[in-house]
């Protein structure tokens, strides 16, 4: 009972943090898993969303929604820019695109600090969700609780769109065989642009939603990118459910794991990630016989 009591808040917080990571990583996994673009500038888009949301927030609900809208639109526009930049590289594999987006992230970071300075920008969220609530005798931030709900809804919507709608089916088809989508009468550049735009929108929205937790500052882009990469690699690129599971796992490692073994806190994330990757490769290789393509895509 004592242990449960001590670790209750970290465990709950792990869910909130995991969902934040899921929302943050969603755009990256979509673009990488389906579009084949490893977007190193993803964290920059997240930070941009955060800055935009912060700049219009004044504590009213209308400004909060306006902030989310502005963040999403900003993310979408940058996604479009990304689409234009990566389209000529579509036939050249992943590395040129990663290199380009790495360059863009460096340029983007410079632009953001030039515009917004090096201070973290606080987001003023509506009073009714700014406080704390009591859960089983523990104090917990209201916003994070609300975030759990909102992010769960987003996850469900995402799973539905990708799994049950025509657009989702098209995207999944694009992941398997891009030529086939072309054969179905959709210009590849339109699919690519739509993917980049959607990924940018997701990143911007995530930045706006997450800003009260991971406030937009000079470190935000790098941190979000690193954590999102961990999430999508552990969750297998392109898999919504996988990303969801991985995000919750990483969230719990960063909270519950830290709470249980704080001495090992600095090693937890990357240690477990390395173990998970290797174990999975072992399992994958025995199941598929280490075929020509490395690892199977479940």
């Amino acid at each position: 009972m004592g242990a449960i009591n001590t670790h209750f808040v970290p465990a709950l917080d792990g869910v909130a943090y995991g969902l934040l990571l899921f929302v943050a990583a969603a755009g990256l996994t979509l673009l990488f898993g389906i579009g084949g673009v490893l977007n190193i500038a993803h964290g920059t888009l997240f930070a941009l969303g955060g800055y935009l949301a912060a700049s219009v927030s004044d504590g009213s609900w209308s400004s909060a929604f306006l902030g989310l809208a502005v963040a999403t639109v900003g993310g979408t526009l940058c996604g479009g820019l990304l689409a234009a930049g990566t389209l000529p590289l579509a036939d050249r594999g992943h590395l040129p695109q990663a290199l380009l987006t790495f360059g863009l992230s460096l340029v983007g970071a410079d632009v953001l600090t030039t515009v917004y300075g090096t201070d973290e920008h606080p987001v003023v969220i509506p009073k009714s969700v700014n406080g704390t609530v009591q859960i089983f005798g523990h104090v917990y931030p209201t916003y994070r609780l609300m975030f759990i709900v909102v992010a769960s809804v987003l996850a469900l919507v995402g799973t539905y769109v990708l799994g049950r709608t025509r657009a989702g089916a098209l995207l999944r088809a694009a992941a398997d065989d891009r030529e086939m989508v072309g054969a179905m009468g959709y210009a590849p550049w339109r699919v690519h642009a739509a993917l980049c735009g959607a990924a940018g929108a997701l990143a911007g929205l995530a930045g706006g939603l997450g800003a009260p937790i991971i406030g937009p500052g000079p470190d935000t882009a790098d941190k979000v990118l690193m954590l999102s990469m961990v999430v999508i690699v552990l969750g297998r690129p392109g898999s919504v459910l996988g990303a969801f599971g991985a995000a919750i796992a990483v969230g719990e490692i960063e909270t519950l794991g830290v709470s249980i073994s704080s001495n090992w806190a600095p090693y937890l994330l990357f240690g477990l990630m390395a173990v998970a990757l290797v174990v999975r490769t072992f399992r994958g290789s025995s199941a598929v016989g280490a075929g020509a393509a490395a690892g199977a895509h479940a």
Partner: protein
Amino acid sequence: MFSSRVSVRLRAAVAVGAVTALAAAGCSSSTSSKSSAKGNAPINIGLITALTGSNQALGPDHLNGFQLYLDTHNDMLGGHKVSLKVGDEANGGAAAVPVAKKMIEQDHVLAIAGIVATPTIQAVVPIATAAGVPVVNTGGRPTVKDVSHLWTMSFMSTDPGASMGPYMAQNVPGSVYAFGPDYQGGYDQLRGFTDAYTKAGGKLANDGGKATFTPFPNTTDFTPFLSKVKASGAKAIYCFYTGQNAIDFVKDWSQSDAKDIPLYAAGFITEGGALKAEGQAANGIITTMNYSPDISSAANRQFVSAWSQKYNGEAPPATAMYSWDAASVLDQAIAKAGPNPTPDAVNSAIKAMGQIDSPRGTWQLSADTHVPVQKWYLRKVEMDGTALANVKIGDLATIGS
């Protein structure tokens, strides 16, 4: 194998690019090496600060404080026009080595000011010392082997904790939970606190009686660390955090089980931009600092009014004041170093300097450690007019040796 046509062009392009770039570096170095101080000729001063990387939130204040002094003194130090050479230490450490070498070898600076991160001090000071160039340091100060050319304007990393320890041992009715980031500066800060605190009879509430160190820079969520505080029965928290960590820690603390447990900290947790970002969450935090903008002295009024004039009426952070003092110390030292100041002469002049009149009050450099012997103040975050401010509520000890 090596038979792609484009790779020929590529190879050639890269080769030509690299060669021209480096050759140009050589040319520019040979031209700029002519500059030397003659009469009241302009002098070069280097300033190293974090403009990118994990400390960039702290960097600009170091630059702005120094620049403000120059702005208000006709861009002159010791009667010479100053050309300020700014360099970026990035994440600190090895990245600053070429920056320092450039300042010394190419710009022939009289002194190097600034330096945010302690690894940068360890990397740069040996180089500067070998070249005889004084380093007037405005960030945290670790233990250094050879301090002959290192002059610290801020404090020894252990000082803030050492000033707060005895006070908390006396005034907190029970044990204290201590936090810090797991880098050397964090260890030093917390060591200063725990040594002084336990010596004064206090007891840490942490597991195992040792301060808790959070991974830096990767900790964004302090909730799991804070969840242990209440159960430990601590009556107060003491911590040292700066920049983004400070903001996250304060926000998480204010929304956790521990929110009713008073938060004491080294002053950086509510300095400048951090306080703005924390907002109401920071209200009531008690900090120790060797500066408060509401100190009433002529020097401070001049500094505060110059700062708030330039920066939309804001109160200056302590870091900017250290940098202002660095400029002021250099101003006096260069003036004493004669019409043709050399780095060595400037270093000797700093060494011979007595009492320094500063916005924080008068202080002087310790002969042993070259760190200020100065008074520490107890401050509390309160509403001051329309905005939150670090208001001085008392004096702590004078520290330094």
